[in-house]
Structures are given as structure tokens and as C-alpha cells.
């Protein structure tokens, strides 16, 4: 989580893309694993969880960035956690108001966003050191990266585990779902498979001499 202090740099496209690709919280940083695996049994759940996290991430980053100069070092983390918990509670009620079905599918994992390391990590490493706009853009990137990661997992698990995507049947009635995919072992396996895919791609591009980003 010890990212370089970017306070003295301007806002670039990379401020956003960092979280989407290079520091993707799911596939690269392995952060926020609990919700990553628990709620990704379907694409809808995964996407909702991603968006909820994105919301908390962005709003808490904004608030933290706004009051960053007021908060004394000693109570920094405590303050951050209180702020994050506030926005999580907020999200919790919003989701209940929107759809109780979704709320029950996500269960306690909405509230567990509080202890998602990405959020506290972003607050500590970025938002508390950067102006609001930059903090928000960076948080948006991270949140988007997280959402993409969750969606990739959720979609894979739903397609294999139920033969559906967003509840729509993909392969006809006769498709045999791979139930294990929506069970806990499947969560571990699918995430491991994505990680393997990522590291395979990375090792491929490394052997082809391409460190294009650097």
C-alpha cells in the first residue's frame, strides 16, 4: 500500500488508469478479497458490490481529501475509519431502499466494505495527501478496477455455474451447469485461474521484451 507520494504531481490519465490496470486491486494487489469471493456468484451481485465499493471509495476519498489538513496525525486512522463507516452505512440504507432482493443477496458483505483494505489503503496512501479532484479521480480509477475485477469473477462464475449472464440463459435448457463454480471452492478456483491468466500474460509480455508502460 506504500505508493509513491504523488502530491507534487499533476492529474494525469494515469491517476485514473493506475487502479484500473497497473495496480488493479483484485488481480494485482489482491486487496479486498472477502467480498471479491463471497458475492461474485453472479454478475449482478458482483457489479452491485463493485459499484457500492466504488461509491464508498469515492465519497470517502473526497471527504478525507477535503479535511486532510485539519486531521492531526494521531487520530488520522480513527477518523478515516469513522468516515468510511459512515458512507458504508449510507450505502447500506441506499441499497435497501433500491432493492431488498439485492440487499439480501449481498448480505453482511455490504457492511464489511468497512474493513476492505482498498478503501483504508487509498485514504491513507492517496486521499490524505492529495487535493480533492485528484483524490476523487484516483479513487474512481481504483473503484473501477475493483468493479471490473469483481465483474470478471462474477461473470465467469455465473456463466459456468448457471449457464447464464445477468440472469439470461446463454446455452439453452440442456446446458449442464458446473455447480462448483457458484460454491465456495469455485470462488477460489476462478480467482486463482484469473491470477494465473494475468501472470501468464505478464510473463509473455515480459519475454517478448515489452515493458511498454514503463
Amino acid at each position: 500500500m506504500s505508493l509513491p507520494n504523488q502530491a507534487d504531481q499533476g492529474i494525469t490519465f494515469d491517476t485514473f488508469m493506475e487502479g484500473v490496470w497497473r495496480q488493479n486491486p483484485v488481480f494485482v494487489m489482491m486487496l479486498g478479497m472477502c467480498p471479491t469471493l463471497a458475492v461474485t456468484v453472479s454478475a449482478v451481485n458482483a457489479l452491485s458490490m463493485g459499484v457500492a465499493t466504488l461509491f464508498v471509495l469515492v465519497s470517502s476519498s473526497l471527504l478525507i481529501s477535503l479535511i486532510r489538513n485539519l486531521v492531526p496525525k494521531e487520530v488520522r486512522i480513527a477518523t478515516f475509519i469513522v468516515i468510511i463507516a459512515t458512507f458504508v452505512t449510507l450505502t447500506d440504507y441506499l441499497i435497501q431502499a433500491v432493492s431488498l432482493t439485492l440487499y439480501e443477496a449481498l448480505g453482511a458483505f455490504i457492511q464489511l466494505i468497512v474493513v476492505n483494505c482498498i478503501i483504508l489503503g487509498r485514504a491513507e496512501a492517496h486521499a490524505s495527501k492529495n487535493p480533492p479532484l485528484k483524490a476523487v479521480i484516483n479513487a474512481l480509477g481504483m473503484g473501477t478496477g475493483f468493479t471490473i475485477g469483481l465483474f470478471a469473477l462474477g461473470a465467469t462464475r455465473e456463466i459456468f455455474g448457471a449457464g447464464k449472464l445477468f440472469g439470461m440463459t446463454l446455452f439453452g435448457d440442456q446446458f449442464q451447469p458446473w455447480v462448483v463454480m457458484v460454491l465456495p471452492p469455485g470462488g477460489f478456483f476462478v480467482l486463482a485461474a484469473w491470477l494465473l491468466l494475468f501472470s501468464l500474460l505478464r510473463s509473455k509480455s515480459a519475454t517478448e521484451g515489452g515493458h511498454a508502460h514503463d
Partner: protein
Amino acid sequence: MNQPSQIQTPSGGKMIATMVLVASICGVLIVGAFEGTAGAIAENKRIMLERAVFKVLPGAAGVREYAATAAGIQPLAAGEAVPARGVRFYAAYDAAGVLKGIAAEAGAKGYADTVRVLYGYDTKCQCIIGIGVVSMRETPGIGDKIITDAAFLKNFEALDVRLNSDLSALTNAVRVVKHGTKMNAWEIDAIAGATVTSKAVGRGINDSAQKLLPMLVPHIAELKP
């Protein structure tokens, strides 16, 4: 949460001020969100409850929440907790305001986790006339047949839960029997291959009915408007 112990730093006053500021911002946000969404959430909950109850008690048009205790029955406000040793149940009424039946929740440990179902109880035939699954984590393809298996759901079109003469327990305990061997109205024909989940449903309903009905039936008249 690494608050160092040296509290007497020069910025003590500032620290308190900041905390107060943060707390008040957060307080405003939370209370605002709570107040702002409370209506919608309550409405959502009501719709969900009604949908569930109407499914197990066809023909119902309105729902009221009650709690049954050894002392009798009492209405519950939305969100109000059930008194100790009490059981929550829902009274459903048709459009004309006539009592259609009673719905209550039952649950028992299934294959993976607790299987929770809502069952509809008909006061006239003293039988269960429908069930709906509230929550479960049973194996897709096997355990989740309790939602879809027509033959299984047929068990609950008229499941006998009559009370005995002194109204202390069911005349015949609800039992789950092996697939294809149902002989009596109080038996549940298990789904072949999903015996564990079937048994969980049966056990849950039996437990709930054994507890609820003896407290409820003597006072059933109080529910009729």
C-alpha cells in the same frame, strides 16, 4: 487504530475539534440517509413481505404482523421486536377483510445452512396450504428443488397440522417420508435425491407449528376483524 499514548500533545484542542467536526459530519450524513431512506425501505419491506405471504396464502390482499406468546396474541408494529418466547406470525386478509390464513416462518438446518421457509396455515382445514422459501444455500440442482419440484410442493396443498384435543400439540407430528411412500395427510413425500433438504423443510415446519399453533389457535378468533 494506532493511537499513540501521548495524548497531551499541543494539538489536543485541535484534535478534539476535528473529531467533533468529523463526528458531526458523519452524524448528519447517517441520520440524513436513515431518515431519507426509511420510507422507501419500509415500503420495500412491506412489499416483499406481502409478496411472500400472498404466495403461500393465495387470495390474500392484506397482511398484519402479530406475535404469539403463551399469554395470547398481540399485534406488532413494523420492525418491533417479538417478546421473549414469542413467535412472529402474519395474519393475511382478503380484499373484504376476511381472515384468509396465517403465515409464519420455519427453519431448520439443511445440507449447507439453515433452510428458512414461510408457510401458509389455513384456519378452517387446520392444514398448511402453501410454502415459499425465504432463504437457503442448498446445492443447486438438488436441494433447490424444494422451490421448483411440483410433486414436492403438492405435499403442502393440504398438510395436516391439526391440534390434539387439549390443544397442546399437533395430533400427528409432521414427518418426512421416503420418496413415494406418503400414506397420510401429515406426511411429506421427500424429493428423491434431496432427502436432507426435504427433511429440513419438514422438521422446520413441524417445530414451528408445534410451537406456534398451540399458542395461536385458542386465540384465533381475536384475529377476525
